[in-house]
C-alpha cells in the first residue's frame, strides 16, 4: 500500500487550526468554570467524620505503641455499642442525604453541561467544515472495522483505515491536550478533570452511602484487631 501524499494546504488550514481551536476552547472552559464556581460550603460534620475515620485507622495501625489500658480506653470510645462514636455515626448516616442532593445535583449538572456542550458544538462544526478528505495518518495499523468511525465522509473502500478524518483528529486532540493543560494552567484545572468526572458521574449517586459503609468497615476492622503492647 503506497503512502498517500497529502496537500500541504491541509496541514496549514486543517491540522494546525484544529489543534489551536481545541486548545483555546479548553482554556476558555477553565476560566468560565472559575467564574461560575460556587464556593463550597464546608460541612463541619463531614470534616469531623473524616478526622475520626483517620483516627480509627491510626489506632489500628499504631496501636501496639500504647499500653493495654490506653488502647482499651480509645477503642471503647470509638467503637462501644452504646456510647461509641462509630456506631452512632453508622445509625445517623442516612439522615444527612436530603440536604445534599439539590446542591450536589446542580454542581454535577453544571460540570457536565460545561464539558459536553462545547465538545458537541465544536465537533459538529468541524465535521461540517472539514469533511470529504483525510487529515492525517495514525502511526499504528488499524483494522477494517474502524473505517466508518474514523473516516466520516470519505467513502473509499480501498483506503487504509489508518488515514483518519478531521473529526477523529479533533477528538484525539481533546484527549491528548490534557497534559498540556496541566503545564499551562498548573495542576488542578477543569479541562483535565472532565474525563474523570464523566466516568465517576455514575458513582456519585452512590456517594452519600459511602460514609456509612466507611464507618462500618472501620468499626469491623477495629473489632477484629488484636492488641499487644510491643514497642
Amino acid at each position, binding site marked *: 500500500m503506497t503512502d498517500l501524499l497529502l496537500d500541504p494546504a491541509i496541514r496549514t488550514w486543517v491540522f494546525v487550526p484544529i489543534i489551536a481551536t481545541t486548545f483555546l476552547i479548553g482554556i476558555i472552559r477553565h476560566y468560565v468554570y472559575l467564574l461560575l464556581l460556587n464556593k463550597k460550603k*464546608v460541612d*463541619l460534620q463531614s*470534616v*469531623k467524620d473524616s*478526622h*475520626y475515620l*483517620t*483516627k480509627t485507622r*491510626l*489506632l489500628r495501625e*499504631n*496501636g501496639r*505503641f*500504647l*499500653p493495654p489500658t*490506653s488502647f482499651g480506653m480509645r477503642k471503647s470510645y470509638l467503637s462501644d455499642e452504646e456510647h461509641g462514636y462509630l456506631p452512632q455515626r453508622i445509625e445517623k448516616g442516612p439522615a444527612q442525604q436530603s440536604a445534599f442532593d439539590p446542591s450536589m445535583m446542580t454542581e454535577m449538572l453544571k460540570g457536565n453541561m460545561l464539558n459536553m456542550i462545547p465538545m458537541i458544538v465544536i465537533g459538529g462544526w468541524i465535521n461540517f467544515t472539514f469533511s470529504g478528505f483525510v487529515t492525517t495518518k495514525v502511526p499504528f495499523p488499524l483494522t477494517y472495522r474502524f473505517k466508518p468511525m474514523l473516516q466520516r465522509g470519505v467513502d473509499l473502500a480501498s483506503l487504509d483505515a489508518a488515514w483518519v478524518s478531521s473529526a477523529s483528529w479533533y477528538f484525539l486532540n481533546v484527549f491528548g491536550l490534557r497534559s498540556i493543560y496541566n503545564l499551562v494552567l498548573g495542576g488542578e484545572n477543569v479541562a483535565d478533570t472532565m474525563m474523570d468526572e464523566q466516568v465517576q458521574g455514575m458513582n456519585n449517586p452512590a456517594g452519600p452511602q459511602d460514609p456509612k459503609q466507611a464507618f462500618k468497615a472501620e468499626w469491623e476492622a477495629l473489632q477484629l484487631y488484636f492488641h499487644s*503492647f510491643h*514497642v
Partner: protein
Amino acid sequence: MVDIQDWTEISYEEARSTLRKWREEHARRSEETVEIWEHVLSRYASSLKDELWPVLEQVAISSLDSARYELAIECLMHLNKRFPKSTRVTKLQAMRLEALRDFKNAELLYEKLIKTDESNTFYRKRKIAMLIAQGERHEAIRQLNDYLETFINDPEAWLELSELYLQEADYARAAFCFEELLLANPQNSLYLRRIAEIRYTLGGTENVELARAYYEHAVKCNNSDARALYGVILCCNYLLPKATAQRKKELGATGFKAADRLIAVYEEQPNENPSLKFQIKTIQTLKNIIKNATA
C-alpha cells in the same frame, strides 16, 4: 545553632529567595525578616510585583512578633488597600489586636471569621492562644478539649494541651495527649522520650516499666539521644531492687549497654567539653550502682 549573619548588606535576589524559603518552611525568624525587609526589600517593592503581597503578609506577622507595631500597621494598610474585603487581611488585623493585648476586640474579630468559615482551624486556635496568653489555663484547657473533639488529629493542639496539663501537674492526662501524638507519629523519638519522662514522673513499677520500654525505643530511633540513654539507666536503677533474679540480669545488661553507649556519645562529641571527665565519672558511678544492685 543558627549562624548570626548580617542581613543588612545582602542583595535583592538573595533577600527575596531567603524570605521565600522561610515562608515555605514556616520558619519563625521574625527579627531577621524585619531587618531584611527594612534594609533591602522595601526599596525594591515595585520589582517584587505580585510576590509583594505574600511578602507583606510575612513581614506583618514578623513585625507583630518583634513588637514593631508601626511597621505592622503600614503593611496592613497596603494589604487592605489592595484586598479590601479579604478574610486573610482581617485575620492579620485580628492578630495585630491580639499582639496589642486588646483581647476583647480580637476575640470579636475571630468569632466573625469563624462564622464565615466553620472548618478553619487557624482562627479557633488563635482564640485559644489568647486565653493562654492571659493565663487562663483552665478555660484554655476546656476550649482546647472542645476543639479537639472536632479536629481530633491536630498534633499542634495535642502538644499544646499536654503542655497545659503539665503546667497543672496533671501527668496522667498529659501522658494521654502524648499517646495521641504517638499514634500519629510512632517513630518520633521526641514524643517517645517525653511520654517516657511523664511515665517515669508518675512513678510506680508499672509506669516505670512502660517508661523503660519507651526510652529504649527512643534510643533505637535516635542512637545518640543522651537524655533517653540517661532515662534507660535511671529506669533500670529504679526497677532493680524489686525485680526477680532473672529480671535483674536483664535489667543489668540493659543498664550496662546504655551506660557504655552514653560514654561513647560523650566521647564522640567534637566540641571541647571542659567537664567531660566529671561526666564520664558520673556515668561510671551509675554503672557501679547497677552492678551492685544486680549482684
